[in-house]
């Protein structure tokens, strides 16, 4: 199951004493069902704010976020957010399995055993079998983010929002987690929206990459990645098309000002 998620003329203005501060101006962007969309932009352009609007955590000042046919006004079921700060997003007082079970706790007690078995399977899928009864703070950073991913799977996501989820782990772990998320996405076919400042990560994972400008943020361009799947950490990254896209996107991000960059 997956849903279409769209930003329609979304504007966010922060009111402060004296001058209003325009975070984004009129952004229209859409992720189709089962698409992997990446959003890249210079730091401070409000990428995370955009994602939090999609999650219903922050309301837009103007415009709306549409999920399926509905306007998002509060966190909708099935839209799951994967935070960069995985350690703060996990519940330190719960074991790994109880963290993963968390989204399912509204279910009747009679289903508990079955749900627990399902959650153990999610842990197996993220490579954490045997760590069910550990606590998050006993695990490495990469393993903690895997727990958060397993918990997201337990919530049966139609849309998975990834807010720089791999930027706080080491380079090798990052590649492993990227591959893991791609495998899970290919298996479950949820809609994925990734926010990152890492151009290579965006190209490696996504179907399309949306580029945001610096403040006041607007949508600069959207490129189709078009690289074959399943993607491979070595083969994909060595593909001349990958390098060309990387060149283009990096140039686009490095260009100052809000002027549009000529396509490569």
């Amino acid at each position, binding site marked *: 199951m997956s849903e279409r998620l769209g930003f329609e003329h979304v504007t966010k203005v922060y009111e402060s004493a004296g001058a209003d501060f325009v975070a984004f101006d009129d952004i229209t962007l859409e992720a189709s069902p089962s698409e992997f969309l990446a959003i890249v932009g210079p730091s401070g352009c409000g990428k995370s704010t955009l994602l939090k609007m999609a999650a219903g*955590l922050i309301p837009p000042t103007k415009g709306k976020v549409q999920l399926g046919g509905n306007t998002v006004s509060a966190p909708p079921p099935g839209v799951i957010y994967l935070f960069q*700060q995985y350690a703060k*997003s996990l*519940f330190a007082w719960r074991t790994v399995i109880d963290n993963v079970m968390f989204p399912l706790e509204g279910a009747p007690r009679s289903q508990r055993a079955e749900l627990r078995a399902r959650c153990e399977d999610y842990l197996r899928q993220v490579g954490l079998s045997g760590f069910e009864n550990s606590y998050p703070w006993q695990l490495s950073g990469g393993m903690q983010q895997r727990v958060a991913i397993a918990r997201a799977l337990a919530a049966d996501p139609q849309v998975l929002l990834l807010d720089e989820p791999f930027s706080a782990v080491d380079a090798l772990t990052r590649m492993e987690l990227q591959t893991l998320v791609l495998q899970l996405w290919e298996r479950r076919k949820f809609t994925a929206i990734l926010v990152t400042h890492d151009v290579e990560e965006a190209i490696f994972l996504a179907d399309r990459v949306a580029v945001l400008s610096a403040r006041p943020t607007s949508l600069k361009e959207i490129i189709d990645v078009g690289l074959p799947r399943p993607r491979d950490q070595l083969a994909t990254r060595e593909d001349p098309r990958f390098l060309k896209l990387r060149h283009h996107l990096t140039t686009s991000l490095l260009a100052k000002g809000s002027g549009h960059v000529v396509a490569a």
Partner: protein
Amino acid sequence: MSWRLKALSANLLGLISPASVLCIWETAGALGWINPVLLPRPSLILRSLVDLVGDGAVFSPLLHTIALFAVGYGLACVIGICIGVAMATNQVLYGLLEPLTECIRPIPKSALVPVLFLFLGIGRATMITVVVLAAVFPVLISTFQGVRGLDPVLLETARTFQVRRQRTIFSIILPASLPMILAGMRVALGLGLVLVILAEMLAGEDGVGFRILDLQRSFQIRDMFAWIFVLVLLGGGLMMLFDVAERRLVPWRGRT
């Protein structure tokens, strides 16, 4: 060296300073440097203490004190946590209660004991109330700060999982702020103990506080010191229990 050994050696290290004080005190007493009537040697006090425990005379006053303290401290923790969470999560309640708590908080609670005698009489109600008043504010303030200081990521996580407000309080907010709540409860433990002893002294009915003052007045200094040793053991024992409870309840403290 294993951590058990390390912990043991740290504990032994901690024993050096009180042991030295006792040794110096004992020696000074034996050499006649201090007046043995006003400050008996620790070995003699210890003997009185052994007698006190031996003939069972220690238990009734001690239980009296512990019971009053436990009820007052328990109430203070429950009230402090409830009001702290309420003030931290509800802006209206914060606006209503903040001025009041800030007015009452700085008052030395010992000053209220005579007032409470007027209204609640000289008895248990006053003693429990005074312990509650002394212990509630540290719990309230640290609960409030703990809840207010929770990382937004944690609360946003709960929201994206569709957790309702009431469940958020019990399954996210309370456990996540437990390290701070316990820090407040630790401060409250000491304050509550001070006030229960003081109230017992002023009420003059029963309990360790009453015993200490009564023995001082009848000039039974050795026994008076024996009761003070009882208090040292009580306070130390409660703190040790607290440490054990804290390690079990928040093993993640300082690791996230």
